[in-house]
């Protein structure tokens, strides 16, 4: 015989179960902190228009990732079987970054580097930010960590790459060297990329004189199509023979550029540089944001990584500018380089070049530095991929 229960007891029982599943019942203070961080990202992206393409997906991803839920319901990004779990796979295994590099290659016009190859050299100097961060992470004593365990050598290598201000490269290297720290490293790298217009100008003003800021660089010569076609082939061979470990990034970058320049695969280049990159940007941003689940992300190591990232970024900007000033000592009058493009040695494409342009315009309305600044930026993209390959070769 079926036992009839009181309807109120029945409702009470089910409501209690339902409440146990709600976010309110499972929320921690960490979730609320991360939701605030997500809202700040959205505010910066939407209201301040700083890197909206990155900050909006990341910010919204942070909100998604920090909605509390009952574990085991296949909802969260770390729960096998959920949609976010599968999307996160591409980030975790370093699949998205090389594909983003394919799109970057299809978008970047290397003409400026080809026409003025000395701009490539600025890309070397700005890599010093990576090494400053690497050495700093190694130097931190274990005693400052609550766990008593500091950063390992491979952790330090992955953290160092934040200095390149190159999001995909940072994700790629972190996924190989320090998967546990990947979220903190990626968020840090993308945050500093978004903050390029805020961080770099004071450093640029500090390190340059009024006379240097108004240096006008001669317009670059026109580059033939043959040179543009040869560049990705020569670039690939020269860099990857030195550092085969950088092949996933460099191979895709130069392949994308070859699609763009060879003249017979316009549709492929358009797809790689347009819709494909947009899709990957959404996936990277969303999964990166969603992976910042408070219980995994809010750790002392994440905070320290943010601090090291700031040092790395500052050093990279400063060394780029100082290196241009050093180069100017050896260049003839009329051939000198405006040090305001030195900041573009960090490969925050294209924001650092935009900052150069805006700073140049502030001191001389007729001085257009944008395309000159693109030279160090794209060179740095190549340079940081080479460094990532070397780090992987030695520490992987």
């Amino acid at each position, binding site marked *: 015989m079926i036992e009839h229960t009181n309807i109120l007891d029945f409702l009470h029982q089910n409501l209690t179960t339902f409440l146990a599943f709600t976010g309110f019942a499972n929320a921690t203070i960490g979730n609320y902190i991360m939701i605030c961080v997500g809202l700040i990202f959205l505010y910066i992206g939407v209201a301040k228009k700083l890197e909206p393409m990155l900050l909006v997906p990341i910010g919204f991803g942070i909100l998604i990732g920090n909605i509390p839920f009952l574990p085991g319901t296949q909802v969260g990004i770390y729960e096998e079987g959920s949609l976010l779990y599968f999307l996160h796979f591409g980030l975790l295994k370093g699949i998205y970054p090389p594909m983003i590099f394919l799109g970057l290659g299809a978008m970047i016009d290397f003409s400026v580097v080809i026409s003025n*190859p000395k701009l490539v050299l600025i890309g*070397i100097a700005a890599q010093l930010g990576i*090494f400053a961060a690497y050495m700093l992470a*190694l130097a931190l004593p274990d005693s400052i960590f609550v766990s008593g365990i500091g950063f390992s*050598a491979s952790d330090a290598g992955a953290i160092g790459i934040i200095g390149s201000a190159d999001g995909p490269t940072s994700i790629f290297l972190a996924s190989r060297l320090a998967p546990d720290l990947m979220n903190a490293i990626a968020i840090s790298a993308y945050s500093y990329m978004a903050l390029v217009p805020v961080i770099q100008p004071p450093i640029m003003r500090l390190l340059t004189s009024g006379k240097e800021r108004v240096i006008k660089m001669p317009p670059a010569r026109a580059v033939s199509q043959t040179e543009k076609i040869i560049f990705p082939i020569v670039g690939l061979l*020269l860099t990857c023979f030195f550092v085969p470990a950088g092949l996933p990034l460099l191979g895709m970058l130069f392949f994308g550029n070859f699609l763009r320049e060879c003249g017979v695969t316009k549709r492929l280049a358009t797809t790689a540089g347009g819709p494909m990159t947009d899709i990957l940007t959404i996936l990277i941003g969303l999964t990166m944001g969603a992976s910042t689940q408070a219980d995994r992300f809010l750790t002392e190591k994440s905070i320290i990584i943010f601090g090291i990232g700031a040092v790395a970024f500052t050093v990279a900007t400063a060394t780029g500018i100082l290196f241009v000033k050093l180069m100017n000592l050896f260049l003839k009058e009329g051939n000198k380089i405006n040090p305001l493009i030195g900041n573009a040695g960090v490969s925050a494409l294209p924001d650092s070049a935009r900052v150069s342009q805006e700073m140049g315009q502030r001191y001389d309305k007729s001085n257009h530095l944008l395309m000159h600044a693109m030279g160090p930026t794209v060179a740095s993209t190549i*340079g940081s991929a080479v460094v990532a390959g070397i780090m992987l070769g030695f520490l992987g």
Partner: protein
Amino acid sequence: MKSLINFTLILVSLLFAAPAFSQAIKYVRINEIQVHNSDGFRDEYGRTSGWIELHNTGYGKVNVAGCVLKINGEKFKIPQGNPATIIPTKGYLVFFADGAPNRGPFHTNFTLEDTNFIELFDTDGKLIDRLEFNPTDMLDGVSFGWFEEHDGKEKLKLLPAITPGSTNNTEEKISRSESFRQADPTGAILTLINIVIVAIALTLLFFVFKYMGNYHVRAAVRKAEKANPEQNGTGITIAGKKKGVLTNDELAAIAIALHKYVEDLHSIEKSVLTINMTSKAYSPWSSKIYNLRQVPNKK
């Protein structure tokens, strides 16, 4: 007809599968043995005996059913039809060398006490692996097999631990990155290496494109000269200007004049259209629209 196609497909698949299997078997090796075992690893009956461990070093599953283990004049054919004879990727399979094959498919018909070698043959009788040992070293409680040394090379030796069914390399290893850190605690050496390699790679790019650029500029000048250049009144060479051929400027002026005439815009022109060659402050190099994606306007 459909069944014939299916049969052909199956036949072709089998033809391709057979060499794949025979190729995979070569990755199986005799990994570890224990000749005398009085109080160690036990079989499913709780009895101790000598044993032989096979290891699949490859990246695919290998079925060793039908393969043969051989010692001095004794052969043991690994029984077929048992799924446990499939060794997974990087997996292990242990046979008890107790001379009692009636105890199960993984009990050989020989022991290891009267031999100084073991051989593994594939189903075609081809030798896959042979492991030789000195019987006098094979004391009770000692196993022998492949061991990875600190230099990364593998050697056959008496093993520091008895590990049937798992890796022989039981010693804790320092990761490559940590051993690098021990040699370079501050990171200065790696920094130097990085800078040198990046500098070489990018400097080579610099030189290649510097000289390639010079070559292209010279080639462009030669091409312009070949095209029979003429000087216009301003002293600027117009590449491609031939006698009787109008310049772009002249064509533009004529086009505007014709347009105005046809459209009857003015009966009499009072102004004079003058086209001067100027050096532009603007060039595509200073325009971001050619290279940068536009930030969407919020309306």
